[in-house]
């Protein structure tokens, strides 16, 4: 493995960044699944950002005369409520679109807090070494070895459900992963042959950092971030489902599943639809991340 690593890294010629991006897109678009996943995920993000424009109805508006309407393809459904209505006659499609804003918004916030803080701590720890590094790593080992879901659940129960609390609890659960990852990358890059080579060849520190180190840090961090986003969406949905996450009547996927749970037998679409939205989100993220890892990591390219 080591010999392969060295052989392939030493054969990489310095190329301009525009060429690099083109290369990446070219390599990436060859995979139809990955391209589809990226398009779907982008559509989800856009519909979440512009939820107010995209959603056909107000997600909170109740229409009790039209409660538990089935989706359009089932008998009794209509184009007014394409994916049907829930127990209070609220439009499921609109609630799912706004639910996406909630789920992805929480995910983005958690990554912004936990990811940035964790990565900084990790880079700092790898850079400083010594006692700071030792203590931080001991703590991270400790936190990572606890299955966090149970703790998150008890903490949420103690401080009470709510979006802000949820973001804080999920961020606390998320940062050690980023820290450990950023640190390991920092440590392994320090001793890489090509960094040494760049230094020997007379490269300036700044140039080494931006042209050699940064591209190598970025792609694994993006992969970790996307995978972490999918995990956060799932955890948030589970916590909301258990009543320890987003508070009703705010539309959130996990909460919608829970609200419709008791009517599974007579109105299964109210459970199915938000679940399908969660599934599409995590699936597109996971396919994209798997492919991204292969496309951006030169060591992986020949393998698939």
């Amino acid at each position: 493995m080591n010999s392969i690593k060295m052989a392939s890294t030493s054969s990489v010629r310095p190329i301009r960044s525009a060429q690099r991006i083109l290369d990446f897109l070219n390599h990436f678009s060859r995979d139809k699944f990955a391209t589809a996943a990226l398009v779907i995920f982008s559509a989800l993000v856009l519909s979440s950002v512009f939820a107010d424009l995209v959603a056909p109805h107000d997600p909170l508006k109740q229409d009790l005369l039209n409660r538990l309407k089935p989706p359009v393809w089932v008998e009794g459904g209509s184009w007014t409520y394409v994916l049907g209505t829930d127990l209070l006659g609220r439009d499921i499609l609109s609630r799912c679109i706004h639910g996406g804003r909630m789920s992805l918004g929480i995910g983005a916030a958690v990554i912004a807090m936990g990811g940035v803080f964790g990565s900084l701590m990790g880079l700092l720890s790898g850079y400083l070494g010594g006692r700071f590094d030792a203590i931080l790593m001991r703590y991270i080992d400790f936190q990572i070895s606890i299955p966090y879901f149970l703790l998150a659940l008890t903490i949420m129960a103690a401080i009470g459900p709510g979006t802000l609390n949820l973001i804080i609890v999920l961020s606390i659960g998320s940062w050690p992963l980023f820290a450990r990852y950023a640190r390991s990358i920092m440590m392994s890059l320090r001793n890489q042959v090509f960094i040494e080579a760049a230094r020997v060849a007379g490269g300036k520190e700044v140039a080494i950092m931006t042209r050699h180190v940064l591209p190598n840090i970025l792609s694994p961090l993006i992969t970790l971030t996307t995978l972490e986003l999918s995990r956060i969406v799932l955890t948030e949905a589970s916590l909301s489902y258990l009543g320890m996450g987003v508070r009703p009547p705010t539309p959130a996927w996990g909460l919608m599943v829970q609200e419709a749970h008791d009517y599974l037998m007579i109105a299964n679409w109210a459970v199915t639809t938000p679940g399908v939205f969660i599934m599409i989100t995590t699936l597109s993220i996971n396919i994209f991340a798997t492919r991204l890892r292969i496309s951006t990591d030169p060591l992986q390219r020949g393998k698939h």
Partner: protein
Amino acid sequence: MYKLAMHRLGHSALLIFGVVTVVFFTNFLLGDPVRVMLPASTPPEAVEEFRRQMGFDRPILVQYWEFITRAALLDFGDSWWQKSPSLEIALRPFPATLQLGIVAIALASLLGIGIGLFAGARPGSTWDKLATSLSILGVSLPLIWFTLMMALVFSVWLGLLPTAGYGTAGHMVLPVVTLAALPLGRTVQITRASIIDELAKPYITTARSKGLSERTVILRHALRNALPPIVTEIGWESALLLTGYSIIVESVFGWPGFGFSLYHAILTRDMPVIIAMAFVAALVVVLINIIVDIIYVIADPTIRKT
């Protein structure tokens, strides 16, 4: 070996202590136990009187000291709602969860390693692509939705299995399948990646050039070295399954296990029981880590010398 074991023991003790401490402080600092125990309409004087009687008016560190010295002797106090020791309440439902958990973990590990090996031995093939796609599907499944869909399809529509309950083998099928799905996906992914890495190493070329069959090369040579990350992952997934996934699956299927009881304790804000259950969960994690370490030592004889 001895030094390593002592180090691990210290780490385990710290882990259990840490979890119990965190749960104690979040419960007692961030929530008011008296408000939870008394109805909202209780007059303020009575609330204060009750607070004094229960000793909740003392400084938090004093309360913590009292709690932790008792906890060290495995006394977590009585449940607030049921007058019996919390640790007993926390342990009672555990065998039911273990019953589901062991079957689910065995299923996920055996199938996962099998599929992962099969796919990893032929990277890029159609079988590999199929296995990879299915594993991505497995890790993307939202558990809350998957459990309900399984119940809808197999119990409501097809009428093959009971929707909820405890007792017969039929009751176990759906909870086991839903619990196993995610660990199965992860085990396939990690086994595949690990075996691909191993097969690229020089000693494999040696083994092949000796004329050994591919089967022997993979099963006897590569798998043994690929095992550590796989075992770590399965251990971690087992811990997650017993202390996390079980909360959702058991609640949906009405399985009277650890997760179901924990959720009940959380909903009724039964703090001594919540803390005792966090203790049990931490203990489970520690025990799983020990099992993983033992398998390490069996798989890799060089560890014994360190």
